[in-house]
């Protein structure tokens, strides 16, 4: 189940998170998994003494490409076409799905077309809900990445960009295979090797049979028309080379100007993603070649909210993302709630800035997407980890302002906006602040005991359920200063 950018039925983040927090197994799995990747990433990135310069280069490359995106995309279209591929443009998810469905149908013989495709793990096709669109036309899409296969078999949703089944442990995976995989070996253990072998046998036959493969792309080179997929398991290589027809769905922001630019990204991506110096399989292809690989290649260039995001000078940074998921692995919020609470194929810090932008920020609704920019303490760990230096905290605060601004002018203002306005009223004048301090000190004394304020009712419970509050002191600093420095008028 990967039903599009924003999942229907997911509540706003705080509610979804509350539910996720009660899942002990999930929290244990996440702590272990993210902790391991985090340490590995730190180790291998420290090996490169030009790591920071690489990050700077990557950020500069991405921003430059985004500034001239139209030009690079046209160049990409020309070079892919010249190499024997066909380029399609899709404005939104529905159009992209329609294009792919038609292409798949067209590959069959007179009996009505191909009824199955193999897939390489791809965020773009999840974003548009391609598997569901194919299923609606009677076409089965088989995910071939191990973790993606687990999610698909369990009728589950992905919870991590790179490790979609990070919320599952070995025992759970064994159970999913036993109950959902038709050709499961009789004596399946929960040894990683045994699980991988079962998946391999299950997939092998599908690879050999499939006429059509569908992939995403990590990069596409405008200059040469070369498309790249970076992966670990080799399933991608099988999909990209065995079938007759290859259809790649790619977000328009994945284009890079020249082949040489890959030098930067291919050093950063595997180290940031899995903590490896180099990932096991990097496949690159340029159009089609007689007798070598697929004989037909289609590239679907997907907008789906990207050009709207591009128009926002601060928000557009999010389009530089290379989907390494380092920001997820270091995020203290993600580590505790997992991916599902974000209600989108893009979870974690990148999801919190990308999903609302692709969906259209601040349409005034209280739905999941608008709650995401607030799902962060702004601790900044993601910014430090991001290989393309996306200033995620900056974009989060920027989007918060957009969400708040969208709600302004409502006939009934939100409670929060009233509080914020009142606070500014008080803080705009030191005299008013002094008075508020005196009132607060008195109020605190009335409810506090032994210097602390315990659980409180009403709007204060969100804080006081788990934390005591200090009783405000009888004398503020300002009052103390004026008492002890009467000679100074100050300003």
């Amino acid at each position, binding site marked *: 189940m990967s039903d599009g950018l924003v999942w229907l039925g997911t509540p706003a983040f*705080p509610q979804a*998170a*509350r539910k996720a*927090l009660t899942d002990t197994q999930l929290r244990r799995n996440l702590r272990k998994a993210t902790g391991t990747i985090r340490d590995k990433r730190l180790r291998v990135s420290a090996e490169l003494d030009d790591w920071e310069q690489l990050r700077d280069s990557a950020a500069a490359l991405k921003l430059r490409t985004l500034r001239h995106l139209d030009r690079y995309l046209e160049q990409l279209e020309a070079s892919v076409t010249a190499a024997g591929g066909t380029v399609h443009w899709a404005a939104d998810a529905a159009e992209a799905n329609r294009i792919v469905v038609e292409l798949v149908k067209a590959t069959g013989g007179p009996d009505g077309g191909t009824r199955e495709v193999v897939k390489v793990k791809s965020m773009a096709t999840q974003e548009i809900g391609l598997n569901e669109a194919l299923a609606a036309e009677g076409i089965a899409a088989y995910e071939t990445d191990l973790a993606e296969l687990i999610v698909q078999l369990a009728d589950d949703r992905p919870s991590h960009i790179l490790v979609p089944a990070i919320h599952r442990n070995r025992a759970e995976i064994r159970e999913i295979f036993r109950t959902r995989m038709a050709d499961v070996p009789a004596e399946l253990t929960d040894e990683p090797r045994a699980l991988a072998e079962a998946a391999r046998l299950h997939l092998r036959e599908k690879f050999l049979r499939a006429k059509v493969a569908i992939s995403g792309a990590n990069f596409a080179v405008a200059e040469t028309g070369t498309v790249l997929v970076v992966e670990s398991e080799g399933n991608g290589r099988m999909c990209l080379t065995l079938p007759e027809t290859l259809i790649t769905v790619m977000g328009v922001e994945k284009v890079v100007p020249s082949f040489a630019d890959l030098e930067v990204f291919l050093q950063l991506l595997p180290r940031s993603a899995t903590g490896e110096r180099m990932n096991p399989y990097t496949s690159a292809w340029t159009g089609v070649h007689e007798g070598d690989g697929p004989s037909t290649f289609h590239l679907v260039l997907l907008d789906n909210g990207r050009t709207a995001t591009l128009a926002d000078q601060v928000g557009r940074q999010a389009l530089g993302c290379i989907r390494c998921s380092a920001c997820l692995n270091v995020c*203290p*919020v993600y580590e*505790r709630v997992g991916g599902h609470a974000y209600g989108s194929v893009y979870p974690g810090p990148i999801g919190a800035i990308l999903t609302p932008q692709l969906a259209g920020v601040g349409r005034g609704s209280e739905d999941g997407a608008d709650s995401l*920019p*607030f*799902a*962060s*303490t*702004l*601790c*900044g*760990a993601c*910014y*430090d980890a991001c290989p393309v230096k996306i200033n995620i905290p900056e974009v989060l*605060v920027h989007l*918060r*302002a*957009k*969400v*708040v*601004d969208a709600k302004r002018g409502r006939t009934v203002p939100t409670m*929060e*906006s009233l509080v*914020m*306005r009142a*606070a*500014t009223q008080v*803080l*705009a*004048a*030191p005299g008013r*602040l002094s008075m*508020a*301090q005196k009132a607060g000190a008195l109020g605190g004394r009335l409810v506090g005991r032994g*210097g*602390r304020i*315990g659980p409180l009712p009403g709007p204060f419970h*969100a*804080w006081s*359920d*788990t*934390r*005591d*509050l*200090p009783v405000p*002191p009888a004398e*503020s*600093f*300002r009052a*103390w*200063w*004026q008492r002890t420095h009467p000679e*100074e*008028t*100050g*300003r």
Partner: protein
Amino acid sequence: MRVALFITCFNDTLFPETGRAVVSLLERLGHQVDFPLGQTCCGQPQFNTGYRPEALPLVRRFAGAFAGYDAVVTPSGSCAGMVRENHPLLAADDPGLRRAVEEVAPKVYELSEFLVDVLGVTDVGAYYPHRVTYHPTCHSLRMLRVGDRPLRLLRAVKGIELVELPGAEECCGFGGTFAVKNPDVSAAMLADKMRQVLDTRAEVLTAGDNSCLMHIGGGLGRLRTGMRTVHLAEILAATEGPASTEGGAR
């Protein structure tokens, strides 16, 4: 050098002892400190929650109150970060204000930065005979990059037993309005932070921001752990002899 104290509205109202500690510490080091009474708040809560127009008058007030000082010291990493990083951004559309902000913002220092970088001291002559652990708050760590300055100051304190905090660089879960907007995630992060803090068996947890300390201390207090939270300034201000400004409950 004309030095002003930016107490922050939060410390002004809830933790005046931290401000008194900064004053006595700097006076002990031979520096006269001013407290411009026109100051209120840096506008961080408004800005970080998405209320930019509401933050703007506070930016203007700040720039006016602190104009003309050589240095502005504040016992808050996150407020120092707000002024240095975000005031220029908020003032961008108003040339007059922008000039005023560009003048003041670079002179705003978090306490440990001011002591180590501007005054060039690490041994401030403090005495604090307690077992202490230090939590580097996110904004001082990743926005201001204070690095190990606070630890260098603490290591030079006489009588102190400084213990390392495991997982120190992980956020405590406060995050300003995050603690109220996402109370459950905030509490979960707090629980993990408290576990690490308690594991150190320290008597005192210190940091450069009372907001994070109020959050962690509020959790420690609720559980009656007996561990105290004390702002870095109060430890550095403490001396031998009659008990000086020690922190109250947070």
